[in-house]
């Protein structure tokens, strides 16, 4: 990667790794330097952060109680050896 500062277009490709703390120190520093002056990208990073939070709020549907019955019966059958 060049030493020139990041464009917004380049930065958006790094946001996922940035939020996961998966960037190298150098890359992270470049992202943060850009975010210091770029309000647009700051908003984008915020959108992405909130997207990830929203995903974590999706609760799975509770397991069908019939499932427990079915697999437990299979367990009992397998235990009767």
């Amino acid at each position, binding site marked *: 990667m060049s030493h020139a500062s990041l464009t917004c277009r380049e930065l958006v490709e790094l946001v996922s790794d940035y939020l996961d703390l998966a960037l190298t120190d150098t890359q992270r520093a470049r992202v943060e330097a850009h975010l210091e002056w770029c309000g647009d990208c700051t908003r984008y990073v915020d959108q992405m952060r909130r997207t990830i939070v929203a*995903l974590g709020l*999706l609760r799975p549907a509770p397991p069908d109680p019939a*499932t427990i019955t079915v697999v437990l019966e299979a*367990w009992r059958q397998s235990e009767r050896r």
Partner: protein
Amino acid sequence: MTEAEQPNQGQEWAEADEAQLLEGLRRGDGQAFITLVERYHGTLVRLAMSFVGSRATAEDVAQETWLGVLRGLPTFEGRSSLKTWIFRILTNRAKTRGAREGRSIPFSDMWTLEQEPGETAVAPEHFQGANDPEPGHWRQAPSTWAAAPVDRVLSAELRDTIEAAIAELPASQQSVITLRDLEGWSALETCNILQISESNQRVLLHRARARVRRAIERYVQAAEEAT
């Protein structure tokens, strides 16, 4: 041996770690097995949905997985964690079922990066071009998303929007975002279960998140225009 022989075990089992569960399973303790099913079944179904066409089929695959776990338990050597083992069984079965349904589930690292090399997080037209005043910078400021409390309370409509976006993801992206962001599991676990490289996992997660963000963006824009 019945589960009725262990009074007040419910709470203890709920907090049991893998080693304890495995020991219980090997002892033939039904409560250990119930705990395992309660702990992982929902996630098994969610992950299966990445590969198959319907929730009913995903449920089917998850049940088959438990049967596979029971059959395989006597010879499970513990080289991987119990969780990784269970979810690998699920992944293989779900992919097989998906293929049988005619859903193409190519999953090799090479396929993912070669078939979709150009997928960007944000479409190029949102940025200024070479002849514009600030090449590479946003044409328009991204929204603040003030019109919808996206990360606090999900309205039914927003929930549906996000779930629809996830359902439309390619299997490789959907499975990664399911384990990483819906379940909150680590990159390492995800890579072990799906048997993909760490770098591939990051690319898939990046693209999946970008697509979901776009779906939320459209939703919020519609909400903004309605006010």
